[in-house]
């Protein structure tokens, strides 16, 4: 019998894991970028933050959302909602030149089975926009 831990299994155990993951560093950066953008444009409270995360960026969405809530505490983004917009990965095959969607670094070219793939999309990690109250 094969058991699989649910992805969210660890999440409620906040104190133990909250800093031991790179998602926490990313969440802190998101809060900092969002807060700076809000302040520079007269926003006092951040209600909503939109980020894009590539499927090959090495980021677990659940962990990022969880860390964002923690990182935003005591900031003007406290309580803000985080919307994560996933970006599907695409790669160009060095053998046949075709650009195709891929799921992982281990994929072969769906057309010619070549494995020299250059990833051209899927590593995105950007804060796109915020919604603020003046």
């Amino acid at each position, binding site marked *: 019998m094969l058991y699989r831990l649910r992805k969210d299994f660890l999440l409620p155990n906040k104190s133990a894991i909250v800093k*031991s993951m790179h998602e926490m*560093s990313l969440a*802190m950066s998101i809060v900092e970028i969002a807060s700076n953008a809000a302040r520079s444009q007269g926003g006092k409270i951040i209600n909503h933050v939109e980020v894009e995360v590539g499927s090959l960026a090495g980021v677990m969405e659940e962990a990022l959302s969880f860390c964002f809530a923690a990182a935003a505490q005591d900031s003007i983004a406290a309580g803000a909602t985080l919307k994560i917009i996933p970006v599907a990965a695409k790669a160009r095959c060095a053998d046949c030149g075709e650009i195709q969607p891929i799921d992982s670094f*281990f994929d072969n070219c769906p057309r010619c089975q070549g494995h020299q793939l250059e990833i051209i999309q899927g590593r995105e990690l950007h804060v796109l926009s915020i919604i603020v*109250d003046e």
Partner: protein
Amino acid sequence: MCESCGCNHKHDTLIRRPDTVDPAPHTAHNHVHGDGHGHDHEHEHGHGRKILVEQAILSKNDQLAGQNRRQFQARGVIALNLVSSPGSGKTTLLEQTLKILKTEMPLAVIEGDQQTMHDAERIEAVGVPAIQINTGSGCHLDADMISRAVQQLPVAERSLLFIENVGNLVCPALFDLGEECKVVILSVTEGEDKPQKYPYMFQAAQIAVITKTDLLPYVDFDISRAKSLALHVNPDLRIFELSAKTGLGMAAWLDWLRSLRA
């Protein structure tokens, strides 16, 4: 960012040379922010004003890494970021490498671990300047830690600077430190499928070193499978196989390091 002291919330990151007294612990202070708004917003995000930001989440780290890189280049320093799981033999490989290269070129080492000065002490025992970064609960080194470390570490011009990252095959893949390249280390006592399990790191590295090859007769590690999996995830990866203990295979690795300096 901690507004009170500008320390970027890194209260538990310690950067120390071996043989230094423990600094007074930087006790957590209360973050009393001027705008103590007790807001409690359960509101929908539909209202309010939208501001376009379009900024890379890692832009601050990448900027600092760029500064490190320019500083290294200006002084002819070549930095290598060594990444692996804990226990792959990074420090032993470094010790043996430094013993041989120290008569040929200036060297320096930045050691990253969650706790202890052990690794920096081992390096200084070899006679190479070292500094220890203890990340506390942190799981990776970042560019800011490196820029602070090199302010305290005497890195001679034209040095080869080895940065031994925290043992972790996940998070360090994402954080540029300003290095020339990442070197991923995999020992034969681990599973040969590590490149498949941790593809981000093998993608991010330009060099892979398979260590502890003297143990190959005693373990089930299929070295050709490990190499083909690593090359599948990163066809440009250059792979060395060696035993730091017996010295077998060290020559090619050392020659590559010398070629960086040439």
